[in-house]
């Protein structure tokens, strides 16, 4: 059987080799943080998600139930579960009335307001999608992943991922136009 780079690295990680673990952290921590931040919009929460993702990964290694391949997909899946649990623990978002807006000296005031609103609205709309729909569109449009890689992460056929993507975008279009209808 052909060994992928992931398999070789994972074999070392399973022996808890510090160099290999460091390599994994350097390779994926920034990406996991970015992914979490884009979904959560909060630096501290995104850091917590990243930290918990790596902690759960170690826990899986301890139980000898970690991945044998596709490490990136595995880690994003853990982060995705964390974010989903976080969304679930929160009251489902309603239309925003109290979006917090702090000034940024480099932006015009009207840009600050509209940019913040756009981002908050989009995050809230994302929170209203199903977990799988959300993960598909975030990995596709924010992380720039290929559909095949997303399919691997979600353990779904490519066709199913495309269907999820389609449904997610339709829902987002509907939700965003709802925001516009109420003048936000």
């Amino acid at each position, binding site marked *: 059987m052909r060994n992928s780079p992931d398999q070789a690295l994972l074999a070392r990680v399973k022996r808890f080799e510090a160099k290999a673990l460091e390599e994994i952290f350097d390779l994926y921590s920034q990406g996991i943080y970015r992914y979490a931040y884009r979904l959560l919009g909060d630096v501290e929460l995104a850091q917590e998600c990243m930290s918990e993702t790596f902690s759960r990964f170690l826990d899986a290694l301890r139980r000898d139930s970690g991945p044998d391949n596709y490490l990136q997909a595995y880690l994003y899946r853990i982060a995705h579960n964390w974010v989903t649990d976080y969304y679930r623990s929160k009251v*489902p978002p309603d239309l925003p009335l109290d979006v917090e807006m702090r000034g940024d000296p480099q932006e015009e005031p009207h840009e600050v307001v509209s940019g913040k609103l756009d981002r908050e609205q989009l995050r809230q709309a994302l929170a209203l999608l199903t977990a799988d729909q959300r993960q598909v569109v975030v990995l596709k449009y924010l992380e720039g992943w290929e559909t095949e890689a997303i*399919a691997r992460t979600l353990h779904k056929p490519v066709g199913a991922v495309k269907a999820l993507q389609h449904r997610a975008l339709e829902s987002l*279009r509907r939700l965003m136009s709802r925001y516009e209808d109420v003048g936000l």
Partner: protein
Amino acid sequence: MKRAERELDEFGKKLFAPLHQVPPLDSRMMEQEKAHFLLEAENLRQNMIPGMAGVKSHKMGHQPARLQGLFSLPVYKALVIGVLVLILLTASSFTVFAAQSSLPGQALYPVKSASEDVALTLAFSPSTRLNLTLQFTNRRMNEIQALVAEGKPVPDQTTDLYQQELNSALQLATQMNNQQMQTALSEIKTRAQDQGLSVGQIITHQPHQATPAMVHLQERLQEQVQLSTMGEANPQEFRSQMQQREHLRHGEKQSSATEEIEATSAAVPILATATPAGGEENAGGANPIAQPTEMPGNKSNGNKPGQSTSGNGNHGPNPTDTLQP
């Protein structure tokens, strides 16, 4: 149609543009996170080694000095008997030990199953039993992975046993107080998520091995995640759901037992009149365990109970009913 798809894709790209900006992580904070991660890993690594080293140093103690005064006749006889018993015990222990790495279908596998049953029988507290049960679910997963890696079919008995263990884990959690139960459910959930990932990898990368039983197992693991998530959030609801499931299971067992009795009594006159070669029809009977999984665990936030999954894999492991507007 294609144009509509393209338009939708463009809409997606435009829509997500505002979220592309991410504030950079503080490099010092990142270093701290890395140090913490590596320290955690090192602790885990060391915890594995001292456990073994401790056992060795404890056992290899001060025996030679003590043995010198023991060689009077009766003591000698007792010692010989003791050694013989020890040899017998060691031999059987070796068999049990060797059986632990056996796979379903191999000669020593029944020894492995029996040793697991004995271990469970000897464990009294729900938490010990739960720990053992969770270990056994990991073993089932490892067995399935090993069989798949060898290109062998996974027997239905293995997936059935796996599912029984999953159910037993949840039932054991209900025997704990709320705080313990929530901790236990968190562990059950994490294991089920990991194992679900492993089953998913098999289904994705070895589709020829993805039997209906395997797909059903994946759904059952998703259900396990949903039920434990629900239990973490709402212990009361979880207990009542588990009670209902147990009643249902009990009812199913009873009805299948009566069906069997009816089927046997109905089969007798037929066999008496027909050729004696009958009886093979039983083999074609539907396996009750291979039916699609019900998903009663989606009630976490007072929504309607979740629909059963269709088995096409389009439903993620996370219940998202609560996220709907």
